[in-house]
């Protein structure tokens, strides 16, 4: 349900900001991506405090959709910018109407991007803990957490985790099927033209702008407003050094995790893009399980591993970074795969014929071409790590507090005023890479 809603919002938003004449399209794109910076538990908190009677299931779906749709908006907007409008022109000339062209050609062109984004949303929802815990919704993740808290009996948690892995396998297989034989690359030669934007005026324009404003209000204004309210209500002075050290820990962990995850993702992504085989496809699929596993499951299994096998690593930053890498590998794998797939192999062959060895050819030709896309993936990993809660709670080295853990402990104790500076800090820190991502998509257009 969240996936469907996210797809509808994400694709529609992407189309409006790339292919129509609404005013300030670029600003709308950047604004639309910003909810990425809002952690799901913060959004849930804000909504619960605003509407205490929020029904668990619908409430969870509602809140998760609001924080998840940017995962669809980003890749689809990028794909729409790249897609060759000539195919749409041809469809129109063959007698298809505007709507038939959109569903038959435009949607098909962005399908791989939309499905990849939808996959991220589906997996995110499966593994989300914070929001559903706050809304008392019984999902897999919460059941695992409850059984873990109840008696430290690992068996129910393990069984439920395996079920989650199975659900992930089904979803990931469906995505692989839908990717099918279609290729994203432009066919033929010639220069790609910019699309002629659809003119939107009068009543439809008002409706479009109003609905985008409503989504933004729900997704962005409610959480930030709540945080601002808390801030205003906190009469005591803030513990500035603690806040700053949490900011430092959050940024440091996010950067470390982004680097480690991207390095780990590089071979998988390149394999999947350059040498498509059943084996490569399954390697890529397997890397997705981590994202679907609730952070708490990965964290517990690493605790077990740390205590039994590699004790020196237990409760170290290294262990935490490994957990992040396991959890968020698919984000980086997807970015690497898309970037490599967009770089024609003939460039590397030319470098070879001019005397470069395979590795040199890769570094001198392919690497510069894929760097922007890979960096975007790293930024997305960084944002997600900043918001991550359960694995951080369990695996962080003693004495290390991130913005997310501080926020969690303050809000669990009901100390909203104390939570405020951490919530504000988290939003501000996470907005930086989110905005960078949106701006990059926008620059890709020119």
């Amino acid at each position, binding site marked *: 349900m969240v996936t469907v809603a996210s797809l509808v919002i994400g694709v529609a938003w992407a189309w409006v900001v790339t292919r129509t004449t609404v005013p300030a399209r670029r600003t709308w794109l950047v604004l639309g991506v910003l909810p990425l910076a809002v952690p799901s538990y913060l959004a849930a908190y804000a909504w619960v405090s605003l509407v205490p009677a929020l029904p668990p299931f619908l409430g969870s779906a509602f809140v998760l959709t609001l924080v998840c749709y940017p995962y669809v908006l980003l890749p689809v907007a990028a794909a729409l910018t790249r897609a060759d409008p000539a195919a749409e022109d041809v469809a129109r000339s063959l007698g298809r109407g505007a709507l038939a062209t959109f569903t038959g050609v435009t949607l098909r062109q962005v399908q791989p991007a939309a499905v990849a984004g939808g996959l991220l949303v589906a997996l995110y929802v499966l593994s989300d803990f914070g929001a559903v815990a706050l809304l008392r919704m019984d999902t897999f993740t919460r059941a695992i957490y409850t059984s873990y808290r109840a008696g430290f009996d690992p068996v129910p948690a393990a069984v439920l985790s395996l079920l989650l892995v199975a659900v992930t396998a089904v979803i990931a297989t469906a995505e692989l099927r839908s990717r099918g034989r279609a290729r994203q690359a432009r066919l033929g*030669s010639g220069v790609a033209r910019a699309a002629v934007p659809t003119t939107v005026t009068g009543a439809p324009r008002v409706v479009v702008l109003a609905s985008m404003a409503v989504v933004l209000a729900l997704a962005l204004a409610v959480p930030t407003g709540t945080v601002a309210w808390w801030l205003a209500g906190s009469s005591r002075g803030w513990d500035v050094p603690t806040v700053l050290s949490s900011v430092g820990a959050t940024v440091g962990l996010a950067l470390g995790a982004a680097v480690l995850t991207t390095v780990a993702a590089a071979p998988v992504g390149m394999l999947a893009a350059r040498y498509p085989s059943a084996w490569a496809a399954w390697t890529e699929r397997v890397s997705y399980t981590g994202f679907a596993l609730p952070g708490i499951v990965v964290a517990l299994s690493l605790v077990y591993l740390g205590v039994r096998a590699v004790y020196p690593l237990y409760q170290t930053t290294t262990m935490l970074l490994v957990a992040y890498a396991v959890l968020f590998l698919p984000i980086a794998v997807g970015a690497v795969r898309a970037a490599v797939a967009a770089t*024609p192999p003939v460039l590397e*062959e030319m470098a*070879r*014929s*001019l*005397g470069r*060895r395979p590795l040199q050819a890769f570094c001198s030709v392919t690497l510069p071409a894929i760097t922007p896309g890979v960096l975007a993936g790293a930024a997305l990993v960084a944002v997600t790590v900043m918001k991550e809660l359960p694995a951080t709670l369990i695996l962080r080295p003693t004495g290390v507090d991130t913005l997310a853990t501080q926020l969690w402990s303050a809000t669990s104790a009901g100390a909203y005023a104390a939570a405020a500076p951490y919530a504000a800090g988290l939003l501000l820190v996470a907005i930086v890479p989110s905005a960078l991502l949106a701006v990059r998509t926008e620059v890709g257009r020119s």
Partner: protein
Amino acid sequence: MSATLRVAGVTKAFGAGADSVPVLDGVTLDVQAETVVAVLGPSGCGKTTLLRLIAGFDRPDTGVIELDGRPLSAPGRFVSPEHRAIGVVPQEGAVFPHLSVASNVAFGLGRRRDARGRVGEMLELVGLTGLASRMPHELSGGQLQRVALARALAPAPSLVLLDEPFAALDMGLRAALRHQVREAVRAVGATAVLVTHDQEEALSMADEVAVMQHGRVLQQGAPMEVYAEPSSAEVAAFLGDAMLLDAVSDGDRAASAVGSVRVNGGPPGRGRLVLRPEQLVVLLRGGAGVPGTVVGAQFFGHDALVTVAVGDGSTLVRSRVLGAPRHLVPGAEVSVLVRGEGTYFPDPTRAAAPAAKMGA
């Protein structure tokens, strides 16, 4: 500087097991030093695959590829592309998008001390002096192809491979570039293999033409030789405009719908006679020749192609007539004469036909 290329018995199939599709089926090609050989064939005949095997981007299944007697691809031996010193100009140019024109051309020069001078020389050779600091997206299609050519020639390769390098360009630009490329390759003294489906390109640029079909080289030789003496009806039909007429030969002359034509030997019997449109002379009815009726005329300016129905009217022949033949309008009664010798091919399917009938 220049080298002799030898390709012998090369096969290549894509896919595995029952789905395997043979693309090259025993290709043999010889390229003498400092010549340009055009590999000419229809789309899908395996030309590009052959080029990729010579460049070392793919490995042949069987067969040998040698450069100056040094095996590049042979059973148990494979020289990687970076050690072959073969320049490649691919169809799409594939100019590195993140490097300037000068850096693209200098790419294969490594740390050579005279690299800058060499880049200047190459850009002058292809007529791009002054564009050295431009980025690829600031160039036109023709300019990009010339950058790709300069980049391939800069390290002074002994062999240059050109894969339909002008396919994406318009006619006028194509003709100009053809000449420029021919001169540039000659100027650096390289041997070149040009792959194309455009016979005009092949015939005008190359010292030798190799006609390729269904993964095999059917005939290789000087353009005029292959045109005048095709080794098979397929080659004749592919290279230039040709008419294939049913004929009965007695060894010296062949009887056909356009009368009795002198042929270049061959065994007596049934077969096919190949004639070029410029060999047919069409005159208003009256003199010698086979009677016919004009059914159509295409006018090209410098000449015209006149289609004539001969015999009982079921056989159509084409004649190339210089100038503007205003009298040869549809319906005109004419006589058709054949100038010179025809090429006769005995038809194996006809000889085998009775046997096949018995088998069925």
